[in-house]
Structure formats: C-alpha cells, structure tokens
C-alpha cells in the first residue's frame, strides 16, 4: 500500500487539510494523528457556549466517525508524533510505531503560555486551551466563589464574562494599562473595561502578577508586584500561546515565532507543509505574521492541501477574529498595528459602534462592536482593496457600502 499523507495534529486545521486534500482530488490514504483523546472539535465555543452550558461535547465534535470514514480519513487519537525522519520520510509515533509518509502536514497548534511565577502549578490554576481543560474548569467553576483571571485578552475576558454571569466574584488582572492592548485601540479597551465593571467584574490594570499562594496545595490568592493580594479559589491564566514548533525545529525546518511558511503554507522542505496556529507566515515584504484564529486554521489548511497537490493557493484574505462577551460581539478585520488615525462611528453608549483604523490615510482594520454588517463590509473593503477615507468613515451620512463600488 502507498504511504499516506500524514497530518500531525487533529485540530481544526489538520482536519481542514484532510478534507481539502479530498476536494483537491487526492484519492490516496490520509492519516490524521492527534494527541488529544478525541476527534477534531470546534475550539472557539470552549470559552463561550460550552463553558456556559449551552453546548455539549458531541455538538463540539466537527465530524462524527462515519463522516470521516466516508471521506476515507483515518484519525488516530491519543497518539503524538515524537520525531520526523525527513530522509526516510517517516514519523515516529508515541505508541512506538514508525509511519512512512508520502507528504507531511504539521498542524501541531499551540499551547497556553505558562505563567512564570511561583505557585503557578497549584491545584485550582488552569489554562483554557483544550476540551479537557474546559471540562475540568467547568467542574471547578461550579464550586468556586472567587475567581481571578490573569490576563485581560480574549480568552480571559470571555471566561470572566461566563463566570460573572454565573454569579461568581471575578477579578481580572491585566499587566498592561488597558485590556486587549495587543489588538485593539484604547477606546475599545475602555469600552470593555466598563462593560465588565458594569457586570460586577473587578478589572485591575497595570497589575503584574508576582506569585500565587496556596493552602494545602490549592490556590488561595494571587499577589501582585505592587503588594496587593486577591483571594481566589479558581485562577484562569490567559496570557497568550506558544506555537508547538519543537517537532519542526528538531527536524531542521526553519522556525521563528512559529514554523516558517510561505503564503501557500510551504515549509523549507518540499514534502512538508504546515498550517494553523503553529505557523509564522512570511509575507511578500519579508515580515513574519503569526495568526491565531479559526480563519487562519481553515484558510492555511486549504493552502496546505493545494500545495501538497503541487498547486498554489495563497492565503491572502484580510485576517478576521471575533470575541463574544456578555451580549456584545466584537468582530475584527484587518491588522490595526501601526495605525496613525482612528475614527469611531456609531453609538458607544448604545453598545453599537465600530472603530476604523487608518495608516497614512489608508484603511487597515475595523473593530465592529455589535455591528456585523460593518464587519462584513470591512472584509470586502480590505479584501478587494477599496478605498475608504477617514472623513468618509467619520461622516454618519456616508453610506459605507458605496465605498465598494
């Protein structure tokens, strides 16, 4: 039998590559290898609907076994790849097997960045990354009264919203001077700080965590560098992710903030492609871009499958992201880093507005708050390179859709 295309990582991106290989016409064997004990699942709802009890595990599973079988995608779970032998074109698995490959896909994902302070390993301290993490957090949350969230980014804030809704006493500790500082402008940060405070969450900015205290091995409080102490019987750490590049590095592939790939998801080895959170994409200008998003998992997955079939299918669309907190949906398109002008359009008080980011007069990103239409329009504007001037965005009578023509 021919060697399969082996996909390392059975997350959303790995599954996408497998299915896209079929739609690209590949009819050989496909082996999807995942180290989690379950079939590929939707990760975004973990910190949202799943934790809130609105969706169960079966609903998170993307494809039931029969649907994978129909496409002749073999998926082994609970097994990791421990080494790649590029010369022999084979991978070594944690169950002791050696598996030859005709092509190799690295969709190894990312893991939660560990908190580098004493006490981070106490019971009751969790990262929210996998279904298993979330299952354990859901159980701990039931019994918890005081919750401390370390990190005011998407994951931490989404969790804070769920915990606050369940009546827990929640404190968010953010080291920067505003929330989500890495991705949004100050007006959006301020809006979210107010939103959380309105729901009874204590938002502490400039709060550098110094250590976690415990009683009998269980967390009891979080201390900050300025000497404050916050009682906690549950701590969630959401301070970013680390791409899983170790396998690729050990195999001699170029890695820098991620497994380096081109716009078609190709690594420095022609037999190996990579997609999803684990990658850093080399842009035409030479800069590296690491995106941590569903869109990236899916679009790069399509690129990777095409590349294995010898076709070029570059991922060029504007990046988009979203976050659900309480009844507010934040939808972001484009990358706002480097903006020199911000225009706010809509009604902040009514929780329905958008923030437009410009650099040298050109639109580079939009954050839409409860304005899905503006977000979708923004995707079209940015994908097709249409112009929207700051003064047009500022003018409430200007029809945004007219910029599309």
């Amino acid at each position, binding site marked *: 039998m021919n060697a399969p295309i082996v996909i390392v990582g059975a997350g959303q991106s790995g599954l996408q590559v497998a299915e896209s290989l079929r739609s690209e016409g590949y009819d050989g064997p496909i082996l999807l290898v995942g180290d989690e004990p379950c079939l590929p699942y*939707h*990760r*975004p*709802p973990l910190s*949202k*609907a799943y934790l809130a009890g609105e*969706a169960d595990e*079966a*609903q*998170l*599973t*993307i*494809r*039931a076994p*029969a*649907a*994978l079988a*129909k*496409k002749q995608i073999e998926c082994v779970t609970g097994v990791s790849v421990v080494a790649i032998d590029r010369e022999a074109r084979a991978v070594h698995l944690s169950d002791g097997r050696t598996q030859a490959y005709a092509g190799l896909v690295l969709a190894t994902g990312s893991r939660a960045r560990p908190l580098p302070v004493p006490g981070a390993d106490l019971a009751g301290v969790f990262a929210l990354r996998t279904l298993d993490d979330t299952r354990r957090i859901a159980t701990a949350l039931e019994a918890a009264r005081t919750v401390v969230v370390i990190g005011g980014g998407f994951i931490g804030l989404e969790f804070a919203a769920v915990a606050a809704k369940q009546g827990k006493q929640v404190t968010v500790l953010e080291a920067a001077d505003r929330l989500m500082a890495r991705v949004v402008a100050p007006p959006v940060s301020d809006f979210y700080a107010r939103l959380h405070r309105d729901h009874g969450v204590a938002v502490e900015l400039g709060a550098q965590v110094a250590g976690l205290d415990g009683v009998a091995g269980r967390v009891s409080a979080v201390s900050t560098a300025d000497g404050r102490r916050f009682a906690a019987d549950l701590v969630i750490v959401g301070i970013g992710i680390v791409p899983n590049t170790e396998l690729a590095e050990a195999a001699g592939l170029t890695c820098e903030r991620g497994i380096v790939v081109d716009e078609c998801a190709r690594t420095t080895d022609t037999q190996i492609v990579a997609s999803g959170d684990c990658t850093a994409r080399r842009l035409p200008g030479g800069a590296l871009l690491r995106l941590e998003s*569903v*869109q990236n998992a*899916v679009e790069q997955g399509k690129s990777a499958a095409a590349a294995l079939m010898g076709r070029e299918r570059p991922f060029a669309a504007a990046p988009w992201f*979203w976050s*659900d907190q309480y009844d507010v*949906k934040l*939808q972001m398109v484009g990358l706002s880093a480097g903006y020199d002008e911000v225009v706010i359009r809509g009604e902040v008080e009514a929780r329905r507005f958008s923030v437009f980011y410009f650099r040298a007069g050109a639109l580079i990103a939009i954050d839409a708050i*409860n*304005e*899905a*239409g503006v977000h*979708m*329009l923004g*995707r*079209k504007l940015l994908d097709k390179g249409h112009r929207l001037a700051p003064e047009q965005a500022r003018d409430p009578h200007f029809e945004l859709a007219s910029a599309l023509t």
Partner: protein
Amino acid sequence: MVMITYIEPNGSEQQIDVPEGWSLMQAALSNGVEGIEGECGGSCACATCHCYVDDTWAERLPAAADNELEMLDNVAAERRPTSRLSCQIKASADLAGMVVRLPDVQS
C-alpha cells in the same frame, strides 16, 4: 430526534435525525453534509453555514436576530427571503420534516 432533509448543492438529499437542541449546522457538519462550512463553530461570526429554508417552513421559524440578518446580507451566495444561517436554527419537535437547501458557495 428531529428528521431534517438537507439538499446538497449537487441536488442530492440527505435525511438526518437531528438531536433536539442541536443546530442544523452542527448536525450537517457531524454527518458530513456537503455545502456547509460552519467555520466559527456556531457563533454567528462567519456566515459560512448559509441555507435556504423551504417556503412552508421559513415562516414557522423564530425570526432571525439583527446580528444574523446583518451576516445574511453578506453571504457569498444569493441572498433570498428564505435565507438563514443554519447555526441559528435549533432543532425542535415542531420542525420535524423540514427541508433546507444548501447554496453552491459559502465563502
């Protein structure tokens, strides 16, 4: 279980028993129905689970929320009066026998 018929872009019909409380998107993905992407996992954030609900059923569904309507205005395929996002339709006993058609593009 609620029996729902999905008509894939190529015209083939898939009859699926959807557990009550599941969205039509979740059941379609789980069963490998062609023509639905559902990238965002049901958060009404990607507009890639667009479907057309058969006329007789469209008016029996709870109305779409503003957010869904705004996403529907921007779907990749033709927007019709019967367009819905299948992640926002939850299976319930009174939908038994419903037919939804899937567009030929989602993104």
